[in-house]
C-alpha cells in the first residue's frame, strides 16, 4: 500500500483525509502534526504518527522518510501559508518523496469568479482578500520549486469545503444558535462548495494520477446549488426556517473592523492565544470576546434600548454569496478521474449528523442513529448540550 504523509493531520481536511484513507484502506497513512497537542484526532488510530513543524525542514525530512507522497494540508495565516512551502518541498526531496499534493483554494480565482472561469483563467494580482493573494503566491512558489526540484507537484483548488469540523458548517450553526446568522441577497448566489469527502477523493486520486504533475485542479461537488441550498438543511435541523434568517446587502468596498474581527475569529487565533493565559483571566477574556461577538459593540449607556444589532455581512461572505458561476471540475474529472463520491443531499445529512455528534441541538427528527447515546436521552436533557454554545 502506498505510504502517504499528511502534514497538518489535525486540521479539518487533514484529519478527515487521515480518517477516510485509513478506514477505507486506501493508503498507509502517516499523520504529521506540529506538536504533541495536535495528535488528538490522529491518535484515535494505531498509526505511525510523527511530530514535525511544517517550517522545520530537518524534522520534516525525518517525518517523511519512506513516504511516496506528501499531502500538504497545513492551514493558517500568511506566514504559515507561505512559510511552509519551501521546507516541506525540500524535506520531501531529501526524503525521496515522489509527489507533493498541495491544498490550494478556488479563492485564487476570487470569491466571485467571472463566468467562464476555469484553471486556464489568468490569476489576477488584484484580489479582494489577502488570503487569495497568499494562495496565488503559494502556487507560484510551488511552481518555482518544481522547476528546480525533483518532487512532482499537484495542486488542488477546492471551493468552500464543508462537512464535519468545517468552519462553514459549524460557524453557520453557531451563528444561527446565537441569533446572528444571515444570508446575502437571499442566499441566491451559487455556492462553489465541495463536501470534504469529495475533496479527499480528489486527494486520493492525485496521489498517483499520471499526467497531473505541475497541474492545478478545481475540485467541487457534482451538483450546482446555492448558498440557501447549503444552509437550509442546517437551519431546519436546528429548528430554524431559512426564511426567518435575515438577508442583508453588502456595502461594497468597505473592509472595516467587523471583517478583521471575523477573520480573526475564523482563524481561531484568539482562542489559541487565550489558552496560554491563566484560567480565570481566560474565562474573563472569553466572556469579553463573546459579548463583543454577541453585541457587535458595547451599548454606550444603560438608557440605550436598541434591540440586537442587525447582522452584517463580511466582505468574504458578500462576495462568495453573490457568485453566479459554478466553477467546473472537468479538468479533475479528465486528468485525475475525479467523480464526487458523496451526493449533495447525503453530504448535508452527514454534516447534520456531525453537528449532532458535536453537541449542537439538532432536532430529533433530523438526528442520526447514534447507537446507545440516544437522541431520546439528549431530548430529555433539554438543550443543555448546545443551546448556549458560544
Amino acid at each position, binding site marked *: 500500500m502506498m505510504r502517504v504523509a499528511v502534514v497538518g493531520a489535525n486540521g479539518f481536511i487533514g484529519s478527515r483525509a487521515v480518517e477516510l484513507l485509513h*478506514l477505507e484502506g486506501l493508503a498507509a497513512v502517516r499523520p504529521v502534526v506540529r506538536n504533541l*497537542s495536535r495528535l*488528538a484526532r490522529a491518535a484515535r488510530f494505531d498509526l505511525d504518527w510523527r511530530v514535525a513543524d511544517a517550517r522545520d525542514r530537518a524534522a520534516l525530512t525525518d517525518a517523511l522518510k519512506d513516504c511516496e507522497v506528501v499531502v500538504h494540508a497545513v492551514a493558517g495565516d500568511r506566514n504559515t501559508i507561505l512559510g511552509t512551502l519551501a521546507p516541506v518541498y525540500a524535506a520531501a526531496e531529501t526524503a525521496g518523496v515522489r509527489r507533493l499534493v498541495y491544498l490550494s483554494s478556488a479563492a485564487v480565482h476570487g470569491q466571485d469568479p467571472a463566468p467562464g472561469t476555469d484553471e486556464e483563467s489568468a490569476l489576477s494580482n488584484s484580489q479582494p482578500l489577502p488570503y487569495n493573494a497568499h494562495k496565488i503566491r503559494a502556487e507560484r512558489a510551488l511552481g518555482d520549486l518544481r522547476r528546480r526540484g525533483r518532487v512532482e507537484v499537484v495542486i488542488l483548488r477546492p471551493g468552500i469545503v464543508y462537512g464535519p469540523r468545517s468552519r462553514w458548517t459549524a460557524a453557520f450553526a453557531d451563528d444561527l444558535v446565537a441569533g446572528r446568522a444571515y444570508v446575502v441577497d437571499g442566499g441566491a448566489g451559487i455556492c462553489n462548495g465541495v463536501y470534504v469527502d469529495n475533496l479527499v477523493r480528489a486527494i486520493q486520486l492525485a496521489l498517483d494520477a499520471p499526467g497531473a504533475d505541475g497541474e492545478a485542479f478545481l475540485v467541487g461537488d457534482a451538483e450546482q446549488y446555492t448558498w440557501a441550498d447549503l444552509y437550509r438543511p442546517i437551519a431546519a435541523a436546528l429548528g430554524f426556517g431559512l426564511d426567518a434568517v435575515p438577508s442583508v446587502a453588502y456595502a461594497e468596498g468597505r473592509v472595516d473592523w467587523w471583517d478583521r474581527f471575523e477573520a480573526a475569529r475564523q482563524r481561531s487565533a484568539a482562542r489559541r492565544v487565550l489558552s496560554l493565559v491563566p484560567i480565570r483571566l481566560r*474565562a474573563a477574556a472569553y466572556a469579553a470576546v463573546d459579548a463583543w461577538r454577541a453585541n457587535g459593540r458595547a451599548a454606550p449607556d444603560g438608557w440605550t434600548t436598541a434591540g440586537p444589532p442587525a447582522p452584517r455581512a463580511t466582505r468574504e461572505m458578500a462576495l462568495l454569496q453573490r457568485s453566479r458561476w459554478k466553477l467546473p471540475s472537468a479538468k479533475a474529472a479528465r486528468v485525475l478521474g475525479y467523480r464526487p463520491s458523496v451526493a449533495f443531499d447525503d453530504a448535508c445529512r452527514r454534516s447534520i449528523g456531525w453537528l449532532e455528534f*458535536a453537541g449542537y441541538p439538532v432536532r430529533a427528527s433530523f438526528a442520526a*442513529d447514534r*447507537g446507545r*447515546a440516544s437522541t431520546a436521552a439528549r431530548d430529555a436533557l433539554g438543550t*443543555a*448540550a448546545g443551546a448556549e454554545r458560544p
Partner: protein
Amino acid sequence: MNVALVGCGAVAHRYYAPALRALESEDVLRVRALCDPDPRGTTDLRATFPAATVAGDVTAAIGGSGIDLAIVASPPRCHAEQTIAALRAGAAVLCEKPMATTVAEGEAMVAAARETGRVLAVGLYRRFLPAAQTIGELLRSGRLGALRRFHCAEGGDFRWPARSPDFFRRDAAGGVLADVGVHTLDLLAWWLGTPQQVDYEDDAMGGVEANSCVRLAYPGGVTGEVRLSRDTEQPNQYLFQCTDGWLRWHVHDADRVELGLGDVEAGFRARLHRVARDGTHPRLGAPRGGFEESFVAQIRNVVDAVRGRAALVVSAADGLASLRTLDACRRSRALIGMPWLGDAELARARQLSGVR
C-alpha cells in the same frame, strides 16, 4: 515540610510550581528535590526552587534527604511505581490524577500506603473548587428537590502543552476519559454516590479516544450523560435538573454557579462568598477563592493531613474509586456513533475498535 516534585512536565510547570511557591512564601513547605529523567523538565524549575536538588529518579530524590512529601506529577504509567517507591522511602505522597493506569496498580498503591502508614492523597483538585463544594451541598441537601437528570459536557480542541506522548498511548491511560473524564466522574461520585449502571462509548479505533460519552443511572431513577471531547468544542457546562429547580456550572468558573428556583421567573448567577453575620443579620463575607486558591488548598490539605491536623479531602480510596469507574466504562465500551462515516468506513471502524 520538605517536598519533592516528581515529574516536571506541563502540570508541574503550570500549576504545582506557582502553588508550591505560594506555600513556600508562607513557610508552609520547602521544595527540596526536583525529579525528572528529562533535564528539560527540571532546568527552569531550578531557578524557581533554588533550595532543590535535581535527581533523575524518585529513589535518588527521596532517599536519605529528609523528604516528607512527594508530589507525583509524572505521566500516569509512572504513578504506581514512583508512589510506592516514595512511600517506602518514607515520604507521604500526593499523586496526580488519574491515580494509575489500572485498578490493580491503584490497589498496590493503597496497600503500600497501608503498609508504610504514610498518607496517600490523589490530585483530584476539583473537590477544592468552591463551586464544586456548593453544588455538592445543594444536591445533597435536597433544597432544589430531587435530582432527576444531569448533563455534563466538557472539552474542546486539545490545547494542553503536552510534553509526553502518553496522552495518546493506549497502554498509558491516554485518551480523554482518563485525562478529563476522571475529574467529572470523581465529582459525580462525590456528589451522587456510586452509579447503578454505567454505559460507555468512544471513538478509539486502534488508538485512544478523542470523544467519549458515559451514561449513568442511579438508584431512584436519576440518569445523566457525560460527554467528553478533545476534538469538538463543548459547552464546558454541567446542568442538574431537579424537581424544584436547576443548577448549572461552567467548569472554568471556580467560584460561580447558576441557579433557577422552581417557578421563580428569574435565574441567578451567583458569585460565591462566605456567609458572615452582623449580630443576628447575615451578610456576604469574604469571596470564596478561585482556581488558584483551590489548587493551593489541595496541597495545604495534604500538608495538614501529614501533620495530623486535618483529614484528607481526596484519599487514596477516592482515587481508587475513580479508577474503578473508569474500568467500568472500559468494560461496557461500545463504538460511538459517527454519522459522517460511510458504510465501509464504519465496518472497518468497528473492527479496529475491538467492540461490537
